[in-house]
């Protein structure tokens, strides 16, 4: 591999690590650690394997066919079909973007002491301004590289000296040690946070923005495999620190302020600020991705000119789509909806709509018209088949579990 390419891969891997966490990943992992110690690490592991496959495929699709995932679904299945997953995604995006804005607001509340809902409009303006002025590379690399601060969770987990034997046993699927409804609801929420449908749309649209071709297939594989694996280590770090700091004291996760204690445990005063900055940066990055993804899917559905690297004046309807999406989601925080409750509800809803988004992937990734000789092999097809089965089960149980164990 040439040095330039190597640098590109390294950057891709680093941004995958820095951009892995978001408000959903932090909330669900902390809840899992606080309530069930290491018992749900296996869900993070399975979710990571799913994400590796689900990210690699749209990247390959974009590199080979020059189609984003949304584009290919519309073209292959027709607008009549495409409208349903997009509508579902639109609703989830609205809620998740609200939760991500809430995450930045909570971070600012932790840093300044000013109540979170006062920050909603300034945060929304900052997100919008960054989307307006920033290029795709700046958003993808700049914010995600800053997100490397989340490695503090991994450092915190190591500093706390967890019982490694018990941690290892957490990777083996096991029945609920207590409160089965809460256990399985948390498991579904972790999966909902990890297998975010927006990743499929955003990653493939980003690959088109970056002008990927067949020469980038190796990089795509490495970024998906290595980047996501290391990224999930950060989420495991959140879970382990919560298991070490919150669980022994009997502290549950009812609000984000309690999660801040996970880093105060190992790092004291610095831990508090590390948590606030980590939460703020990761949620800000996720806000950008979520808002742009709404712009991508709406524009690709309606055949509008789109592209973050284009000047707003050259893609006015795309710009209008993400502007309205930011404005609408901000209202959720202005009216004072609890960001943690909104996050957990959004994750459950994400699980419900996953089959709609993931199932077409199996058809498209086996279509030679799009992928030529780069269609899925049997191993990938088998894994995607299992993922689709899993998403159907999650879709059926998510809402009943939310009612029984969501708290």
């Amino acid at each position, binding site marked *: 591999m040439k040095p330039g390419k190597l640098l590109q891969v390294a950057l891709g891997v680093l941004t995958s690590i820095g951009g892995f966490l978001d408000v959903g990943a932090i909330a669900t992992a902390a809840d899992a650690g606080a309530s069930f110690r290491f018992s749900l690490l296996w869900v993070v592991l399975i979710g990571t394997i799913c994400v590796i496959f689900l990210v690699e495929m749209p990247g390959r699709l974009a590199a080979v066919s020059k189609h984003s995932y949304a584009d290919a679904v519309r073209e292959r299945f027709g607008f009549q079909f495409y409208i349903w997953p997009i509508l579902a995604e639109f609703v989830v995006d609205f809620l998740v973007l609200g939760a991500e804005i809430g995450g930045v607001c909570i971070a600012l509340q932790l840093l300044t*002491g000013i109540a979170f809902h006062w920050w909603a409009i300034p945060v929304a303006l900052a997100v919008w301004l960054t989307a307006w002025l920033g290029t795709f590379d700046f958003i993808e690399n700049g914010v995600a590289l800053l997100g490397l601060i989340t490695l503090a969770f991994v450092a915190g987990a190591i500093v706390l000296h967890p019982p490694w034997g018990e941690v290892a046993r957490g990777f083996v699927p096991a029945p609920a040690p207590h409160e089965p409804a809460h256990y399985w609801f948390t498991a579904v929420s972790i999966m909902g946070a990890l297998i975010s449908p927006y990743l499929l749309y955003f990653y493939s649209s980003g690959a088109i923005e970056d002008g990927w071709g067949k020469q980038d297939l190796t990089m795509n594989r490495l970024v998906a495999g290595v980047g996501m694996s290391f990224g999930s280590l950060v989420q495991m770090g959140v879970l382990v620190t919560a298991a070490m700091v919150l669980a022994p004291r009997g*502290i*549950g996760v009812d609000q984000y*302020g*309690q999660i801040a*204690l996970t880093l*105060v445990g190992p790092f004291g*005063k610095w831990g*508090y600020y590390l948590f606030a900055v980590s939460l703020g940066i990761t949620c800000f990055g996720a806000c950008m991705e979520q808002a742009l993804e709404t712009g991508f899917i709406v524009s690709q559905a309606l055949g509008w000119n789109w592209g973050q690297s284009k000047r707003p004046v050259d893609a006015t309807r795309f710009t209008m789509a993400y502007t309205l999406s930011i404005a609408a989601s901000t209202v959720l925080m202005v009216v004072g909806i609890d960001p943690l409750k909104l996050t957990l509800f959004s994750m459950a809803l994400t699980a419900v709509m996953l089959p709609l988004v993931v199932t077409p992937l199996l058809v498209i990734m086996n279509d030679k018209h799009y992928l030529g000789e780069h269609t899925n092999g049997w191993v990938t097809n088998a894994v995607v088949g299992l993922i689709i089965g899993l998403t159907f089960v999650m879709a059926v149980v998510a809402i009943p579990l939310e009612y029984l164990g969501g708290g």
Partner: protein
Amino acid sequence: MSALRTLGRCWPLPFLLCLAACGAGSVCKQIARSDKTVASWAATAAMVGQRWAAGDVPTSYARNTLAKGARQMRSEAAALARSAGGDPLVETTSTRYVQLAAVLTRMEALAGTGNKAEVAQLAAALPTLERLDHRCSARGQAQAS
């Protein structure tokens, strides 16, 4: 025949016993749910109080968290009283929640004045909740006797 007649007159007894048992179980379940939330906030307050006194977390965070904890405890007490008011176990539990909430409110006020020593003392002595199963089994024993 008379035995059958006596049995006939007593038929509501097992039904009523069942109903009482189910009622007690449901109250215990409600208390268990509330206890979990209140115990979590009491533990949060204890850790926040200690960490604030050690200078690890800012005053605004400590005050916000303690105030939120106190609100949650009062709201659990009110919810319990609404759902099963009149039950002695519920009343004792609600009173205990309100007392705990008062401790948190006192800690919040002391944090506002910068009194680290007293906040640390209250945090260390923050009363823990009695175990629910003890209370419910004690009630069962009392009913049996």
